[in-house]
């Protein structure tokens, strides 16, 4: 399979008055053709920073980015000038943001905002661009696309606005789309609609998708492979089905238990105790040990490395769990 994105040893730090914030500490990421890869983690785990680093959207200052390899579609992005990056962004790599209301321009009709993509990247005339825009809106499932194109963002509902962002991202049929929490601000019913559209478009257009989210139920719905992040490091990597059937890392197990479902017991919510450590002052050893019920002396001292366990799976834990939730042999 063709590799769309290859990322090796990405490190991002933000020097601040309070100390060095190590947002991302050495991440490897591979995305193959027509694949949906999910990057899961709580706020502050560094998942958004990673996705922005891939698009080279992080300003320096404030950030310092180190990366060994950043290859997109066979090209070395670290050597691209800002001008070349501008050609790539939007055309070959596009981004969908969480909050559609703030990422759309409120004083421009949504149609014009999508037109811009075609005018800028495909050199279309205004008329030709608008025709394509209407077609794109129709494809994404917006009723009366010709009329809707003349609407301003505030005249559309939240689900519609998110669809407009989808249409914009898919406009030039890019190789890779990065969706940063695409459905977090939406109602459950609209979330299901948008996810289904996103999945359908991704399959239909042959695009690869990097999905950044904190919600494992979203991951379960559309992803093919999953990377679980915690405090700037990957803690588990697995194909989606394997991960949900047999999670290895205690953090993944905790995240899965936190997803509310309709079959759960009443009046009892399983929680992961504590909070994500401060990025300035991370704990010794395994970053998860203060919140982990299986932590041992070794976990407090040493940081485990990411080791392969089975086909396409890796886990960063001294005591990976087996399927029954009990401990496997070390």
């Amino acid at each position: 399979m063709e590799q769309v994105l290859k990322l090796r040893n990405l490190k991002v730090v933000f020097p601040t008055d309070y100390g060095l914030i190590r947002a991302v500490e050495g991440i490897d990421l591979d995305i193959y053709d027509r694949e949906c890869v999910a990057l899961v983690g709580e706020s502050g785990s560094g998942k958004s920073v990673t996705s922005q680093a891939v698009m080279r959207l992080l300003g320096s200052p404030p950030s310092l980015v180190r990366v060994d390899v950043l290859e997109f579609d066979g090209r070395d992005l670290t050597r691209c000038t800002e001008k070349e990056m501008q050609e790539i962004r939007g055309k070959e790599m596009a981004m969908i943001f969480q909050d559609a209301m703030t990422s759309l321009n409120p004083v421009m009709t949504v149609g014009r905002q999508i037109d811009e993509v075609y005018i800028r990247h495909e050199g279309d005339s205004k008329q030709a661009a608008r025709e394509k825009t209407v077609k794109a809106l129709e494809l994404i499932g917006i009723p009366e696309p010709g009329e809707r194109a003349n609407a301003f963002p505030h005249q559309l509902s939240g689900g519609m606005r998110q669809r407009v962002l989808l249409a914009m991202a898919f406009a030039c049929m890019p190789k890779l789309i990065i969706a940063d929490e695409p459905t977090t601000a939406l109602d459950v019913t609209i979330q299901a609609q948008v996810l289904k559209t996103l999945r359908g478009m991704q399959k239909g257009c042959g695009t690869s998708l990097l999905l950044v989210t904190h919600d494992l139920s979203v991951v379960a719905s559309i992803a093919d492979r999953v990377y679980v992040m915690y405090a700037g490091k990957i803690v588990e990597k697995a194909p989606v089905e394997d991960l949900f059937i047999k999670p290895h890392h205690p953090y993944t197990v905790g995240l899965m238990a936190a997803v509310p479902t309709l079959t759960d017991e009443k009046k009892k919510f399983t929680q992961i105790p504590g909070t994500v450590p401060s990025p300035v002052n991370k704990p010794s050893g395994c970053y998860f040990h203060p919140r982990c019920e299986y932590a041992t002396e070794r976990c407090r001292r040493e940081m485990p490395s990411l080791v392969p366990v089975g086909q396409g799976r890796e886990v960063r834990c001294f005591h990976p769990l087996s399927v029954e939730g009990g401990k496997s042999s070390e």
Partner: protein
Amino acid sequence: MSDIITLQNVSVHFPVRGFLPFLKKGEIQAVSDVSLRIGRGEIFGIVGESGCGKTTLANTMVGFVKPTAGKVLFEGVDLSSLPRQEFKKVRRRMQMIFQDPFSSLNPRFNVYQIVSEPMLIRGEDDEESMKARVVELLEMVGLSSGDLYRYPSDFSGGQRQRIGIARAISLNPSFLVCDEPVSALDVSIHAQILNLLLELQEKLNLTYVFISHNLADVKKLCDRLAVMYLGKVMEAGNSDKIFAKPLHPYTQALMAAVLNIDFSGKREIAVLPGDTPSPIDPPPGCRFWQRCPKAMRGCKDVPPEYVEVEEDHVVACHLVNGFPKTELPDGYDQPLVRSEKTVKVRR
């Protein structure tokens, strides 16, 4: 169990004004003809999509919004009949927890100022006892006295929500409205906040109204619930009964929309098509007819009545209750054939 809140045919309408303020263009029927009762010590869920009027309804319960018609009784007393001073006294016993912990806390106040403000407004002036009380409250919600002089920006989303909860319980309320208290938080933090709410309920003997658009949270938390759509209650009653036998197509659609992480069976995303239509001058019939997968021709024009299908389980749907024996349009019970164009989107 006596009821703490009773709503009698409550409607809240907001006028939509045109170019000149006295030219009324229409009416947003945010809440229309809602009758509910909430028992003491109960967790009552209000579920629905954005724009269905659940927040307006909650605001009406605590007196933020005056009902256009109908009555809100708090412990049997009509809130709108009370003189201002009396109302203020009652109002202390109802508090709110807001959705967004980032905008509901004053960024220029420290934790002590935020949590003690309700006491100041009540007229307390003893600094020492107030401080002791704030520390006690912070410990109750899982923060410590060391956080007293820190500012909201120093805290994570979950911790800020804890501050909001401490503020809400500072005057020993008996009734608490939680307006989507976890939807702005990470999934992993949801459980912590919901467990805290359960713990406080037991300790302080509270009654909650819990507003949410996620049925999974509501199922786990609530004793009774109401499912709302476009200002009307579609189905209401005992939570166990509704989840065991959801009768309204909208309730069923909401249940199907909850994403699961179960990989043992076939996986599919169930989708309820369309968007919530405009609440301005809605049609006279069932409000859900435009998106209802089982709509019949009569649903558009004949309003469904509330029928108690079993004890403490009320449904408003022609499909379940049958059409009333009045004048009915031709072919009222035939399935509705609709073209895409009939689904009008909110502007």
